[in-house]
């Protein structure tokens, strides 16, 4: 398929691959920008068109995820809107920060962005992996950690402290079953927005752990909340890029067929698992996402071409690890529901058959 600038892309392969990204998006609640944009560029699209088309695709795909999670009851509208407001303000600050850095030279900006991305990914992956391992051990020992994994909520010292701060308006979030100041949610959105604007990504993979570990929102509830929180920013980005002629509508619609189906299956899959499974896949996908930027930074520093090639391969490869994890979990869930034996570790991730919200 030939697109603007005479570049040829394999549309069918792209549609299948973004279907995998959709599966991750629906299951974990990320918009998938950190996977889609590099994928489109590596598949041969010019960077501007890749960003614009990717944004249009993610906007439409987020809508599919939001509508599905709303049906499944995984959406806190009030929290989404406050987070979205904060993220937009923060994104503007992040973009201005990036502009200042670019004044010192493109190379400085590139290393700063990739370094900040890598640092954020490492910190988030350590926090999520540590918690997942601890909760998994508690479940294996049959201790009280089961209640946390059962997705009522995760109690960290940070979320206890933040919820106890009585800053007006101290709001009740009925769907998330918690009370916290609206300002804290807004400031959290700004923090994610600054990183999002600075790093040029949607910020979902940062917002998800922030909502779980700092706000205390149930893991499954963060998925829909997060998608709606990023929807407005994605839509605005798509609108601006379309004005510049950077959106290939036909390609976006074709890829949407694959990605939308993946998102729908992923979103449906969350109803068969406890929150721990979502965090388990989130940890895997963030760890997988660390390697690409690490090799890219090594390439910038050493200028060895093979490192750049490895970084590109790893960037595409990072889609496969979480997709494999989700497919294995879905197969185990299907076996569990049909009454077949599943490994003990998998049982701790599966919701009881009666609690699945859809058949």
């Amino acid at each position, binding site marked *: 398929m030939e697109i603007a600038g005479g570049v040829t892309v394999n549309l069918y392969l792209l549609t299948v691959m973004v279907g995998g990204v959709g599966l991750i998006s629906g299951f974990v609640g990320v918009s998938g920008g950190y996977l889609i944009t590099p994928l489109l560029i590596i598949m041969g699209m010019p960077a501007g068109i890749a960003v614009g088309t990717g944004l*249009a695709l993610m906007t*439409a*795909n987020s*809508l599919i995820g939001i509508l599905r999670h709303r049906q499944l009851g995984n959406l806190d509208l009030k929290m989404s809107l406050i987070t979205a407001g904060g993220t937009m303000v923060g994104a503007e600050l992040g973009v201005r920060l990036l502009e200042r850095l670019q004044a010192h030279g493109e190379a400085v900006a590139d290393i700063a962005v990739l370094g900040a991305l890598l640092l954020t990914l490492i910190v988030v992956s350590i926090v999520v992996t540590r918690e997942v391992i601890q909760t998994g051990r508690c479940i294996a020992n049959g201790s009280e950690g089961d209640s946390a994994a059962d997705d009522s909520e995760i109690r960290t010292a940070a979320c206890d402290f933040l919820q106890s701060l009585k800053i007006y308006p101290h709001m009740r979030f009925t769907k998330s079953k918690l009370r916290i100041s609206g300002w804290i949610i807004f400031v959290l959105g700004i923090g994610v927005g600054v990183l999002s604007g600075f790093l040029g990504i949607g910020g979902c993979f940062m917002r998800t752990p922030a909502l779980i570990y700092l706000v205390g929102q149930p893991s499954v509830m963060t998925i829909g909340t997060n998608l709606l929180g990023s929807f407005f920013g994605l839509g605005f980005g798509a*609108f601006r890029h379309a004005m510049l002629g950077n959106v290939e509508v036909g390609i976006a619609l074709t890829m*949407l067929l694959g990605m939308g189906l993946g998102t729908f299956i992923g979103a449906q899959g969350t109803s068969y698992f406890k929150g721990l499974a979502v965090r388990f896949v989130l940890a895997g996908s963030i760890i997988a996402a660390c390697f690409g930027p690490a090799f890219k930074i090594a390439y910038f520093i050493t200028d060895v071409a093979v490192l750049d090639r490895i970084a590109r391969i790893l960037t595409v490869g990072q889609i496969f690890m979480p997709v494999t994890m989700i497919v294995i979990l879905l197969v185990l869930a299907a076996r569990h529901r049909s009454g077949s034996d599943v490994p003990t570790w998998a049982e701790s991730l599966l919701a009881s058959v009666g609690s699945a919200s859809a058949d």
Partner: protein
Amino acid sequence: MSMRKDGAIAAVLSVLAIAFVSFSAWFTLSFDPDWNEMLGSFSTGATTLMLVLVAGGLLAFAFDRGQQAVVVLLKPHPDDDTRGR
């Protein structure tokens, strides 16, 4: 209305919605309309955004009806005695 009839209608609606989005994709790929030339840049942005959002909404509807159709049509309904009511 019988459960099976509900399932069939859901299946048809699902196929129609997916066909509509597929047709739109084929049309824009085949005829390659130059949105920027046809419309002003603001209208281009608005039209593109509206188009992808309508496609997203339609696909969400299609997958939901598709799932409903699969559940209804593939499960045996031995006690489907509502027929003719």
